[in-house]
């Protein structure tokens, strides 16, 4: 049996796209037939739950009872991957809690696969979080997710500043999330469906929808780029699953494959 995997998606700074990245991760696992459950820490009203209501629970990570709901159920058979969308300001406290309950030690000893997607916005305030978060990362896969939420850069034009943030943490891996067209993003927000369903022109209950072909195209193109980053870091291997390309074109008539590069329906 594969060991349980926990992926924490978070940042201390707000508005950097934590939930957006969580949604792409859930869509990616869905497309690769990896059973997944998700926890949304935007208690009491979750944003992630609005897009993935069937697999998402809203929890308060500061409450012991909810910590038990998440971590005491990790050894149950399925699903084996747990994605936690940590709300703004709570990443460092959440990691400290995980250390206190011995979770980080379990990850270090290899009993659990633990990965952190640290979402970074293009601001110094956001990048300053890296050093603090890195203190908790022994035994974890640490991903610095550069989320291009607007047209600015991550200080690549100033190499000393860039290196001081991105090359200081030895074992961190960078992931780049490109910018999604604003109108396309807003349309998915309005539709309140996973990106994958939006691309497939489906509503919340799998009914046929009437989204703009152009906006669906932008989302498909963007999602394909995001997933190619997940492919690059071998995300399915990290959580102990082999990619199943045949199953990807499964019962949904290729909808899951639709977002793949070159896989337009």
């Amino acid at each position, binding site marked *: 049996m594969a060991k349980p995997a926990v992926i924490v998606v978070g940042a201390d700074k707000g508005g950097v796209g934590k939930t957006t990245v969580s949604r792409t991760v859930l869509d990616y696992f869905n497309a690769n037939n990896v059973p997944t459950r998700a926890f949304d820490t935007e208690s009491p009203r979750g944003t992630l739950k609005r897009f993935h209501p069937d697999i998402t629970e809203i929890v308060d990570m500061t409450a012991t009872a909810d910590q038990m709901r998440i971590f005491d159920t990790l050894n149950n058979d399925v699903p084996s991957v747990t994605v936690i969308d940590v709300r703004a300001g709570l990443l460092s406290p959440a990691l400290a809690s995980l250390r206190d309950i011995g979770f980080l030690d379990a990850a270090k000893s290899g009993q659990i696969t633990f990965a952190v997607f640290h979402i970074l916005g293009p601001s110094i305030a956001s990048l300053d979080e890296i050093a603090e978060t890195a203190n908790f990362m022994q035994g974890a896969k640490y991903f610095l997710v550069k989320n291009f939420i607007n047209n600015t850069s991550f200080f690549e034009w100033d190499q000393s500043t860039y290196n001081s943030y991105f090359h200081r943490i030895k074992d961190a891996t960078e992931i780049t999330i490109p910018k999604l067209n604003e*109108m*396309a993003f807003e349309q998915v927000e309005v539709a309140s469906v996973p990106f994958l369903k939006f691309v497939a022109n489906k509503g919340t209950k799998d009914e046929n929808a009437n989204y703009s*072909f*152009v*906006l*669906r*195209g*932008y989302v498909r*193109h963007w999602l394909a780029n995001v997933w190619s980053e997940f492919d690059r870091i071998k995300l399915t291997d990290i959580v102990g699953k082999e990619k199943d390309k045949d199953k990807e074109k499964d019962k949904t008539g290729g909808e899951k494959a639709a977002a793949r590069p070159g896989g337009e329906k």
Partner: protein
Amino acid sequence: MRRTPVYIICSPRPLVGKTLIARLLCEFLLLQRGGVVGFDVNLKEPSLLDFLPRVTETADVDNTFGKMQLMDRLILNDDIAKVIDLGFHAFDEFFTMVGEIGFFKEAARRGVAPVVLFVADSDRASARAYAMLQSSVPARAFITIDNEYVLRGELPDALSRGRLLNIAALPVFLKTYIDRVSFSFTDYLRHEKDTSTELHQWIRDNYFSFRELELGLLLQG
């Protein structure tokens, strides 16, 4: 149901005859199919809207809303032929967007038949654009237009690898005549008694080429 053609007349260069070809094609499709919608993405040059205002709509690809308004119409299989007069300034933006949204694959799935009519010129921008289109547009949907009025019969070798459509040059006085906003090619064919005139012949030749194009689409379908 037969496939709905979408003709995209384009060049990265101004004043190579895009609007002339768009006019000719629109009038031919009106005659052949009884209807056509022209989209003028060409407001910085002589424009299709000036010549055929009753069948032409303006469109722009500078912003997402404009792209949605245009492309969500083009992807409809409604049996109404569409002609896009794509201005040189919109060339890059249009084809970048077309690539990103997967227009050609979605069109094939929905029974829409896009045809890119690339008006050739002998400069480097045209060579680059040609190479880009060759790699991104399916070969059967990509046609190079050799407008003799622009190239004077010297189509660069690099641009002559795929399907070609030739537009013969007209004498300057006839060119001036057809460039009048009130001129209609089909009206000329209908009302000019002398069928041996150079202009009569020129229009019939071009309509014949377009009929071949339409037949090709039928056979592909």
